[in-house]
């Protein structure tokens, strides 16, 4: 007896909420026997199969495979049982999409690590040939039809030569013709391999092909047919007529190999090399990685240094330009002379303190304002000829004259009687007469107190004390 299930129970919840998915199920399968279980969706068929396959722990009862109570085994041993004793075919083929067909088949055996890869691939090759896929060994799942994928799944389930094959709706998503082919294939393989098989299906026609048929209804498993004599091959079976006629099952056509049959050997060799050359491979990858990292690091450093150089060079150019424009070049009010009638001659100096080479001032724009209230009212400031040039070439100290007219009625007197006057001087500065790079825009403000020409000194002296006569203008330091 390959499988004996005794009073198997699977319940969920407690008390009034308790639901028995499987209730007191008993089942025995002899070696090589084919048993099918039918039932409606939700009747507990798949739960029963999951418990038999050591995937779901039962609430109660016992499952013995080869006489060993599997749920009494430790987890590591249970894994061995799953891998060695049981083959699974699920409702969907569940191929690993990035592996070839032969790799998918070989994988469960390779994971065990007990059998040499070449032997595993040989068996995989053999199995795929027997399921009619000798020409599709190297095909990837995405390149195969649903029927082909299901055949690969069957081959995969048999790779470890299990004693028990559990098939849960193995033809669920296949057309009628293909599902009959699959079942016929399973039957043929069962005959060859001698495994016992439990197939869960909702298709009673397919179920009728089994030697025994059981029905699961609301968790209770009951036999609906008497055991039959177990044939070894489908063609030799002596089946009683099923309730419904079944189309003749046709075995796969003659198996053909891939022309070179290299796929299996390549896979085996590759797997073998993977282990044998692992150290070498790691060293090579490390060496290559080091070289790549070194190159990237050097490139990174090179780029960083270049960027640094460029940024520093640009910064140095701007700093030199700023130094030239703000420190080397100086400018302020040189003198103011009264011309009478609210008119003044204002002299502005622009000085290149390093004398040579010259500094070029583009488009100097000088304006004058008188404080009125809290704002500045522009006063007429007329440049003389030398102050109107578009570009001034500054060598040494150069003077530029303007005529200022201050006809302002009510100016603000920060210093009694004096006007508060602001001159703005906006200059674009370059060391070159024809600038090729940045220009520095310098915006100067010069503030002075300016004595109106219609206020006598005596009047001022009454309110403001000076060591001498009230000056015409007072330069205000910036501090």
């Amino acid at each position, binding site marked *: 007896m390959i499988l004996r299930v005794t009073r198997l129970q699977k319940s969920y919840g407690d008390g009034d909420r308790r639901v028995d998915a499987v209730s007191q199920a008993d089942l025995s399968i002899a070696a090589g026997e084919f048993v099918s279980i039918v039932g409606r969706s939700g009747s507990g068929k798949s739960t029963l199969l999951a418990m038999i396959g050591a995937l779901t722990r039962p609430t109660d009862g016992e499952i013995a495979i080869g006489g060993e109570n599997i749920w009494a085994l430790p987890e590591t041993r249970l894994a061995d049982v799953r891998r060695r004793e049981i083959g699974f075919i699920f409702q969907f083929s569940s191929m690993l999409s990035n592996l070839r067909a032969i790799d998918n088949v070989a994988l469960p055996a390779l994971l065990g690590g007990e059998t040499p890869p070449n032997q595993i691939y040989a068996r995989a090759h053999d199995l795929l040939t027997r399921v009619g896929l000798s020409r599709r060994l190297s095909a990837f799942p995405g390149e195969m039809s649903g029927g082909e994928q299901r055949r690969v799944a069957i081959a995969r389930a048999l790779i470890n030569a299990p004693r028990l094959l559990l098939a849960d709706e193995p033809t669920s998503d296949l057309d009628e013709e293909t599902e009959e082919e699959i079942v016929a294939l399973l039957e043929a393989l069962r005959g060859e391999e001698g495994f016992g098989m439990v197939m869960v299906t909702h298709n009673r026609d397919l179920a009728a092909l089994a030697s025994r048929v059981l029905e699961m209804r609301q968790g209770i498993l009951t036999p609906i047919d008497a055991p039959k004599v177990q044939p070894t091959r489908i063609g030799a079976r002596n089946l009683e007529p099923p309730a419904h006629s079944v189309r003749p099952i046709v075995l796969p056509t003659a198996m053909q190999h891939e022309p070179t049959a290299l796929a299996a050997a390549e896979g085996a060799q590759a797997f073998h090399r993977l282990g044998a050359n692992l150290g070498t491979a790691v060293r090579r990858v490390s060496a290559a990685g080091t070289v790549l990292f070194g190159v*990237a*690091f050097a*490139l*990174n450093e090179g*780029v*960083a*240094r*270049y*960027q*640094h150089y*460029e*940024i520093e060079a640009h910064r140095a150019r*701007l*700093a030199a330009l700023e*130094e030239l424009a*703000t*420190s080397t070049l*100086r400018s302020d009010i040189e003198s103011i002379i009264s011309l009478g009638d609210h008119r003044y001659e204002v002299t502005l100096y622009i000085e290149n*303190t390093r004398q040579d080479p010259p500094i070029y001032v583009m488009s100097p724009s000088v*304006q004058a*304002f008188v*404080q009125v*209230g*809290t*704002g*500045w009212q*522009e006063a007429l400031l007329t440049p003389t000829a030398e102050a109107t040039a578009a570009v001034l070439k500054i060598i040494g100290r150069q003077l530029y004259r303007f005529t200022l007219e201050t006809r302002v009625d009510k100016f*603000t*007197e*920060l*210093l009694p009687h004096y006007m*508060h006057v*602001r001159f*703005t001087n*906006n200059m674009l500065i370059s060391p070159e007469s024809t*600038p*090729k*790079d*940045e*220009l*520095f*825009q*310098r*915006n*100067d*403000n010069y*503030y002075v107190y300016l004595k109106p020409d219609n206020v006598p000194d005596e009047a001022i002296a009454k309110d*403001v*004390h*000076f*060591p*001498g*006569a009230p*000056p015409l203008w*007072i*330069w*205000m*330091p*910036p*501090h």
Partner: protein
Amino acid sequence: MSEDEINNVTAPSVTRLKKQHGPIDRRKLLSAATTGILGSILGGRSANAAGFLSSLMGNTNPLAPSASAAESNALRMATLGDYVWLTPTKLGGGAQVQDLASGKTMAWIEYWNYGDSCPIAHHLAAFPSVDPRKGFEFVNSTQGGQNALIYGIPTQLREHGMLDPLWGQGNQIYRVGFDGQQMNLLENIAETTGIGLGVHTVIFPDATGFTVSDGQKDIVAFFKRATGYDKTEVIDAFRFDWIGNEPNGLLADNWFKGGKVRITRLVKAQETGVYDYRGIKGNKLEWEMVPMGEYLAYTGQLPGNDVKALTGADNCVHHPIHPLSLVTLRMFAVGVVFDRTTMEPMAAISSPDGTSKEALQIKKIADGIWDLTLDNVVTSGHECGFSPEGKWFTMTNNTRQNSMGVFDCQDRDPRNWKRVTVYKDSHWTGSTPSPFHITYSMDGSKMLVSELHQKPAKSAIVVVDTKTWTTIKRFENVGVDMQTMHVTYDGKYVLAIFSGFQRLEGGTFIFTQDTLEPVGYIPNFGGHHDCVIVPRNNQELIHSRCTTV
């Protein structure tokens, strides 16, 4: 263009020419773009790119959004140190204390809240505190109120009646306490004592008192320290008056043809029992002795009631070891040394090269009156300071000379101090740029000088080797209108504050004290004019600018 437009015209400082082909062509642009892409991918660190390789190497951006506030605090703590940074807000009218470890402003005070209609928070100094985070006291002078009229601000202070002679003309001396949470005004020392001065406040190295000076009044006062809500007392106060040999000739000759400085001990008014120098009382000038104020004085552009008597006594620094204090007379670049044990002037030194005598005698005329005779005047001066070990004294010579006199000042008797050299950086030609404020490295091996450039140029920093008195490093284009510097007490960093001529850019530039490498900038909100790292003991106090201005 409208008035508003004129007031708000701004432009980038660097302008690229339009339609200018120049050296930048498409090939270069493509090259630059390729470089940028490669750099971004590979993570060129100098461009701050965060490519995959840099990420693999752990070169992550510490300012990434995922960084927590605590992490950023830790970063700053690791870089600048665990210090409390005190700065006045100049025209903002107050002071604020910042935690250099966290970057937070811990507290601030604004003096106009207390009825001062034109406070210009000027110089300050902090007394030592074991734990500045839990509390400390400082003294902050406010500049003469009419100084708000000389910065080109279109103000209406006068029209609005805010220049009251007592409460709108500055010269208050505020003593403020930080209690760990907020700042509290403890005392207006000007109100308590009747002496109102608005410039340098410098604490004695033993922290028992302090001086406040003002070149606008030519008065220096020595105060005994009070704490909490106790009242400050005056130890002594002195006025300095110039009596020129030729007062009626050309105005400049009033100073440059020699004369004598009369030093007078001030007395309290009999009627009130306090001094009578509050507000504008005692002002010789309408404005503070700004940099170049000497020039304005001898060209007749500086209004005031007694300009010709001007000596420019606007700072007083203290020897770190000996009980000596030196008052700078800016009009002559001369220092008058007081003995704080007798509270009498002992001697004077002349800083500029070319003066007939470097050590000058003080002649006592009567009780509380002394004369200092100057045969000739070469140039004016400005700031000065002692090195922290008390070996060197230096003073800046400005306007006509642009150099620094260097004196050996180790002797207890200042009459024995000798000028050993005159230091001059190669950039100091003409009237500007000129040496400005001074400080020293912790070990005194380096003198750090801020170098004032004419607006709109940015100031520089000159580092001088005090063994050879030569320039060993210059930081150019640091910031507009740089003021004082301060070294962190662990000797790692130098913080240099610049105020932007009250309205331009401001900030604090940081560089390493030993390796003299630039570190970067931290913000300076409000145009600070001075700075102090609050000292934790008297040893740190010596490095807290009580020996330099």
